Structures are given as C-alpha cells and as structure tokens.
C-alpha cells in the first residue's frame, strides 16, 4: 500500500482543483442570487420559502456523500487500497458538514414556520441519528494509528451506517404523522420553484465534489507527513544503533 504514497514525491496539488474551486464559487453565488431574486413569495410562508434553496440541496448533498462513502467502502474491501479509504473519509467529512448544515437550516425554517426549533418527528429524528452515526465514523478514525486497521473499521462503519440513509429518505413516506413535508419534486411545486431548487442542487453538488477532492488531497499530504516521520525515525535509530 505504501507504494501509493512513496516518500519520493509530495503529491502535487492538482491544477484542476483551483479552476474547479473558482467555478464552484461563482456557480454557487449565481445560483443563490437567481433563486433569491426570481423566486416569488409563497402563498403560505412568504419569503421563508427561499430557505428551501439552501436546506434541501444541503440535505441532498449529504445523502449523496454518504452514498459515495458506501461505494468507496465496498471498493476498499474489494481492492484493499488505502486510496479508497481516504476518499471515503473525505466523502464522510463533507457529508457530515452538509447534513449538519441541513439540520441547522431545517431548524431555523422549522422555528419560523412550525414555531419550534426542534421536534422528535420521523424525518428530523432519523436525520439526527444518521448525522451522529457518521460523526462516529470520523471519531472512530482517531482511535488507531494503524492504517489498515483504521481503513477496515472505517469501511465496515461506512457500509453499516449507510443502511440508515434510505430510512431517512423514505421517512416522510413511511411515517405520515410527521410535521416535515413530503419530498420536493417537480410534481409537488411550480416550475419557478423547482428550477431554482434544481439549480441550487447542482451548485451544492459542485461544492460537495470540490470539498471531497480538496480533502482527499490534504489527506494524501498528511499521509506523506506520517511516512516521512517514520522514515526519519528509522534513519535516526539506525544511526544511533
């Protein structure tokens, strides 16, 4: 596995990341401005509806990140390459950020429309459990310094924790006693709202992709630091010995 991260060269920052970052930033600003300016006030909740353009895309991006982590965890078990472990960890970290954001934004929206910051209804509760499971994934990674063991444990949790994602997705359909509305689709809203939601959804997916790629690059660098530390320590002990 070490051949992937040979100490001979520092992984260079891919040039596409710079362009990708700027494109993502401009796309996100444009999508939010278009959504904010062109979306008419909703008959019931007025301009509070605009929170949908950040809350729903953040939730979509979070679930997609966890799906990516699920696939990458399986890939790790198949190939046994640390590359997939680092990519899965990058996906989970970005997914935790997005899901945390979706929870907080949903809480703000809930306070403004339902009158409460939080309620133990199925969608909110299952999302909070999903969030905590993936926080557990990231915490678990700090429990061992041994690469293969960390990768094995993480991949197992990456597969098991994903079982909760479909429950979150279908929670509003399975349990119909919650406060949360049904999934946002082109049938459930007028085209003006749907097009803006779709546009902001793409913007958040770009942000997710950029964060995952950047985090993977940082993980490669940190792995390189670990390897060089080990090499220096071995050289030092060989000189002393």
């Amino acid at each position, binding site marked *: 596995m070490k051949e992937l991260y040979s100490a001979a060269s520092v992984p260079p920052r891919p040039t596409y990341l710079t362009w990708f970052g700027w494109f993502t930033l401009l796309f996100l600003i444009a999508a939010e401005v278009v959504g904010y300016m062109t979306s008419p006030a909703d008959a019931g909740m*007025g301009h509070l509806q605009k929170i949908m353009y950040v809350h729903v895309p953040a939730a979509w991006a979070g679930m997609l990140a966890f799906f990516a982590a699920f696939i990458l965890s399986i890939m790790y078990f198949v190939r046994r390459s640390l590359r997939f472990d680092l990519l899965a960890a990058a996906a989970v970290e970005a997914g935790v950020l997005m899901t945390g*954001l979706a929870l907080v934004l949903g809480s*703000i929206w809930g306070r403004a429309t339902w009158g409460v910051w939080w309620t133990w209804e199925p969608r909110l509760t299952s999302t909070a459990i999903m969030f905590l499971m993936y926080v557990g994934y990231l915490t678990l990674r700090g429990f061992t310094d041994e690469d293969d063991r960390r990768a094995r444990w993480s991949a197992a949790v990456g597969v098991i924790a994903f079982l909760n994602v479909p429950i979150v997705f279908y929670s509003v359909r399975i349990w119909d006693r919650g406060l949360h509305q049904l999934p946002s689709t082109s049938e459930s809203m007028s085209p003006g709202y749907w097009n803006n939601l779709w546009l902001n959804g793409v913007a958040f997916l770009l942000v997710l992709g950029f964060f995952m790629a950047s985090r993977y*690059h*940082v993980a490669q660098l940190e792995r390189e630091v670990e390897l060089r530390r080990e090499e*220096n320590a071995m*050289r030092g002990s060989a000189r002393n010995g």
Partner: protein
Amino acid sequence: MVESRWFYVGLAYGLTWVSLLVYWFRMRARRIAALRELTDLGSKS
C-alpha cells in the same frame, strides 16, 4: 412579521456561507501545515 421572516432567511443564508467558508479555510490551514511539515522533515533527513 415580515421583518422576522427576513431575519430567518438572512440567518439561514448567512450560516450557510459561514459554514462553507470556515470548512474551506480550515482545510486550507491543514494543507499549509502539512506542506510546512514536509519541508521541515525534508531538511532534517
């Protein structure tokens, strides 16, 4: 009521940008720290 609705919209958008920027700057700081350490380790070896 209208003012309070805009307050919640502003809070949501503001928190979104703060969260994304904080995460990005944190990642950038980790990248710079790793590069510095690699330089130090390279000069010591």
